[in-house]
C-alpha cells in the first residue's frame, strides 16, 4: 500500500486537480458531490442492480471500470482514470463509473477508505453477485475471461469496446475520444 503514495502518483493527482480548475467544469454526477470526496458512497448492488446504471438510452458514453482494492494493476491505473475523467467530466455525454469487486462487507471500510485516499471522485458501485459470476461476466462481454482490471465502454446499452487489461492515460483518452 505504501507504494501507492509515490511522487508519480502525487503528480497525477495534482494534474487532475489542475485540469478541474482550468476547465472550470462541473461534474454532472448526481450521487457524488464534485470536489468533495470526504465521504464517498459505495453502493452495493447485484448484477441486476448494476446493469440499469450504465445502459440508459441517453446518448451518454459510460466508461465502466471493474477493479478491486487487492488488485495491484487496477489500483495503479486508477490515477490515469481520474486524470482523464478530470478532462471529460464536464461533458454531459460522458460518465465514468467504478465497479469494485471487493467483498461486500468491505464496502464501507477498505473500499470507501481507498476511494477517499486516492480521491476517486466518480460514482462507486460494489458488485456483490459472487455465485453468478459465470452468468454476469459473459453478459458484460463475451470475451471476458474474468481477469481485472477490465473496462467497458458503452452507449445506449450497446457495448462499443471492452478492454481486459490495464489502460494508460493515452489509451484511455483515445478510446473515449473515438466513442464520444
Amino acid at each position, binding site marked *: 500500500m505504501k507504494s501507492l503514495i509515490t511522487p508519480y502518483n502525487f503528480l497525477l493527482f495534482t494534474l487532475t486537480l489542475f485540469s478541474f480548475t482550468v476547465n472550470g467544469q462541473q461534474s454532472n454526477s448526481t450521487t457524488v458531490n464534485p470536489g468533495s470526496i470526504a465521504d464517498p458512497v459505495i453502493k452495493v448492488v447485484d448484477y441486476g442492480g448494476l446493469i440499469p446504471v450504465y445502459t440508459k438510452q441517453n446518448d451518454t458514453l459510460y466508461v465502466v471500470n471493474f477493479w478491486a482494492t*487487492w*488488485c*495491484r*494493476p487496477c489500483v495503479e491505473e486508477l490515477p490515469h482514470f481520474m486524470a482523464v475523467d478530470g478532462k471529460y467530466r464536464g461533458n454531459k455525454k460522458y460518465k465514468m463509473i467504478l465497479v469494485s*469487486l471487493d*467483498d461486500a462487507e468491505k464496502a464501507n471500510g477498505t473500499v470507501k477508505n481507498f476511494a477517499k485516499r486516492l480521491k476517486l471522485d466518480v460514482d462507486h458501485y460494489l458488485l456483490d453477485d*459472487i*455465485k453468478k*459470476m*459465470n452468468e454476469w*461476466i*459473459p453478459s458484460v462481454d463475451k*470475451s*471476458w*475471461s*474474468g*481477469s*481485472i*482490471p477490465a473496462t467497458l465502454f458503452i452507449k445506449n446499452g450497446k457495448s462499443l*469496446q471492452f*478492454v*481486459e*487489461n*490495464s489502460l494508460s492515460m493515452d*489509451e484511455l483518452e*483515445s*478510446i473515449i*475520444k*473515438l466513442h464520444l
Partner: protein
Amino acid sequence: MKTIQKIAGLLLISLFTIGTLSAQGYKVGDAATDFKLKGVDNKMVSLENHKDAKGFIVIFTCNHCPYSIAYEDRIIALDKKYSPLGYPVVAINPNDPALEPKDSFELMIKRAKEKGFTFPYLFDDGQKIFPQYGATKTPHVFILKKEGAKNIVKYIGAIDDNYKNAADVSKKYVEDAVDALLANREVEVKTTVAIGCSIKVKK
C-alpha cells in the same frame, strides 16, 4: 484533426484486438503442450513423467492472489480425491516475481510447506507455458485427458461457483468434469468464467 484522432483510436483498438486474439490459447478439444518446469522440491516436472495418470488437473495459481489463497484448501482436497483416481493436480505459478515479489520461487517453496501441498507446485520460469494454454488469471483451471500420446483439453475455467465460501458452493465445476471423464461421459459444462487476478507480465 478529429479524423486523425479517430484513425489513431481505430489503430489502437485493432492493436487491442490483435493482442486479445494472440492470447486466446487453447479451446476445449485442443491438445495441450507438455512442459518441463521446476517444482518447489527443486525437481523438474513434466506431464509425461506421470505414466499412470489418466489425465491432469492443471491449475495456474500463485501465492499472492486472494482468490488463489481462498482456493488453496480446495485445491489440496481436489488432489487428495482425484490423484488416486488418476487425475493429479499440477499447479503452476505463471507470474513474473519482478512484478509480484510474493510470487517468487523461494516464497512458493515456503507457501507449499506451510499449506502442505500434496501436488507439484511449478514455476513457469520465463513465462513460456501459460500463454500457450491461454491462462489469463489465477486461479485458472485446465483439465486434460490423456488420449494416446496427447493431453486433450476437456475443461477450462473456475474450480466452483463460490470462491468466498466453500460451504456455500452449488456447482463444483472441476469435480463434475473429472467425474464425467472418469465415467467416460461427456463433460457437461466445458467452460466457465470467474473473476481472478490478472497474470503479471512485463508490458
